[in-house]
């Protein structure tokens, strides 16, 4: 069964709303679209003017999903797109600046939205440095929090203010908003230098070793995410995991709370949290800082 959703001349054909995208959990495409619409006012500023890579799961989270960069055939004509001219080929990316596009993404069973780190207007100059703390299996979330807090202390000492969020899974991602004047390489070098200090402080639980076999079950500090075309999951984006968790912005003091559970932030719980705590990631869009000169 299909139905039509229409506002401001934008038509969205909704299909199969009862399809369980989280099978066995009663979470359907309808719930996903509703979530996208309700969170849109908070999420859209983080997507606007960025090339998007989306991950779709038309058969639900237990079946393999796929990344999609190009716009599919038959997509509505009102969708906004922009071309990035790479060195070898050009890619037409989807842009998302309105709730309608989010609703359409929901109907496409898009369960992850990944924006570029740089705006499409300055594609070579990232708007933030990202510190991706991705623990291997078996490392407790407490340890990830500890690493994040040490990172916070180091950045603070440099007079910088960064913002943490859950990855939606077991990791934490720390964003340092920057003026869009640095190249990806400069941002990468800076991130690597900071990570080196973290590794020196916590040599037992962190590593900057690139070879997986040499990491010894430690948390990998990955500065290479700071590159053109690389993406992290957007704040408030759902993840295709049990319970429909989302990537949730946090307060630093929350990381000291031993009972913080990242999977407790879901498409059901994040809206009440937004109402009571506010949009904790809003400063990431405004609080643009400079990389300190040594």
């Amino acid at each position: 069964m299909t139905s039509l959703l229409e506002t401001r001349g934008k038509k969205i054909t909704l299909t199969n709303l009862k399809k369980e995208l989280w099978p066995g959990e009663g979470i359907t495409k309808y719930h996903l679209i509703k979530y996208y619409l309700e969170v849109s006012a908070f999420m859209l500023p983080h997507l606007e003017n960025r090339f998007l890579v989306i991950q779709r799961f038309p058969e639900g989270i237990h079946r393999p999903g796929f990344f999609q960069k190009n716009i599919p055939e038959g997509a509505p004509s009102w969708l906004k797109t922009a071309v990035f001219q790479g060195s070898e080929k050009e890619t037409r990316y989807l842009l998302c600046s309105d709730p309608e596009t989010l609703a359409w993404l929901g109907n496409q069973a898009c369960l992850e939205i990944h924006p570029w780190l740089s705006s499409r207007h300055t594609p070579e100059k990232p708007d933030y440095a990202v510190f991706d703390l991705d623990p291997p299996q078996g490392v407790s979330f407490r340890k990830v929090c500890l690493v994040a807090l040490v990172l916070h202390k180091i950045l603070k000492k440099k007079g910088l203010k960064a913002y943490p969020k859950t990855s939606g899974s077991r990791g934490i991602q720390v964003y340092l908003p920057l003026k869009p004047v640095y190249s990806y390489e400069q941002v990468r070098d800076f991130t690597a230098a900071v990570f080196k200090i973290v590794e020196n402080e916590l040599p037992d639980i962190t590593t900057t070793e690139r070879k997986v076999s040499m990491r010894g079950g430690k948390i990998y500090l990955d500065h290479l995410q700071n590159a053109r075309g690389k993406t992290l999951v957007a704040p408030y984006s759902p993840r295709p995991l049990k319970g429909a968790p989302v990537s949730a912005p946090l307060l630093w003091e929350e990381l000291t709370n031993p009972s913080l559970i990242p999977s407790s932030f879901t498409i059901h719980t994040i809206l009440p949290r937004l109402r009571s705590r506010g949009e904790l990631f809003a400063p990431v869009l405004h609080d643009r800082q400079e990389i300190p000169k040594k």
Partner: protein
Amino acid sequence: MRAMWKGSLSFGLVNIPVRLFAATENKGLKFRYLHLPCHSPVEYKRVCPVCGKEVPWEELARGFEYEKGAFVILDEQEFKAAAGESEHLIEIQDFVRIEEIDPVYFQSTYYLSPDGTGRKPYALLRKAMEDTGKVAVAGITIRTKKTPAVVRVYRDILALSTMFFPDEVRNTRELPDIPGEETIRDRELEMARDLIENLATPFVLEKFHDTYREKLLEIIDAKIKGKKIAVAPSPEREKVVDLLEALQASVEKVREKKSKETAAQEGKPPKEKVTTTSRR
């Protein structure tokens, strides 16, 4: 009426193009199972009890249980091969007297109507069968199975009744407690015969009614009038309305947020901060 089968009736050297229509229909009332708290019709799902998952169509197979828990799986090709060519043919083999066939063999009845050029040979066969008082025994393939059938004149048309195969009719000898030749007293037999003679009338089926259905319809009617009706909400429709409201609310919210930001920017001297939302 919609034809459920198209083909030809072959009789000697003549082929009569015909269409088959179901002669009977079941008038039993259909009830649907609802979820009592919300009155929604329940859905049926194919679930694998081992994997605990709903089974999509492409993962379904048909298996024959040749012994408890052991299956032979046949694919569509093999089913097709067994069915052979599906010739759309009613092939008349013999003519017999209808009394020779016990009603236990009759399965379902269809009306035959001539198709295209079949009108004349149809009329001819009808007349010949009427005159001789004989009915035709034929084979017909419906879907995958070739079954025996009888073609006869019913009122002014030809009707076809499919029949069970002989081995599908159970043997009466398997029935328990059937009396043999008991000694019956003449007096008793005479009384029983008299009773039958007294009740003998021409056959009229119309005096039988489906009283169960009538009673149910009465109850349903009363409930509709008394407004004690279980009306299912239309989940899909409601959901779309719900989404439309959510969409309108969020369009409004985004617009508000933007105008606030623009106002803030215009009202105050520009600061270090740059908002991406109003940049173009």
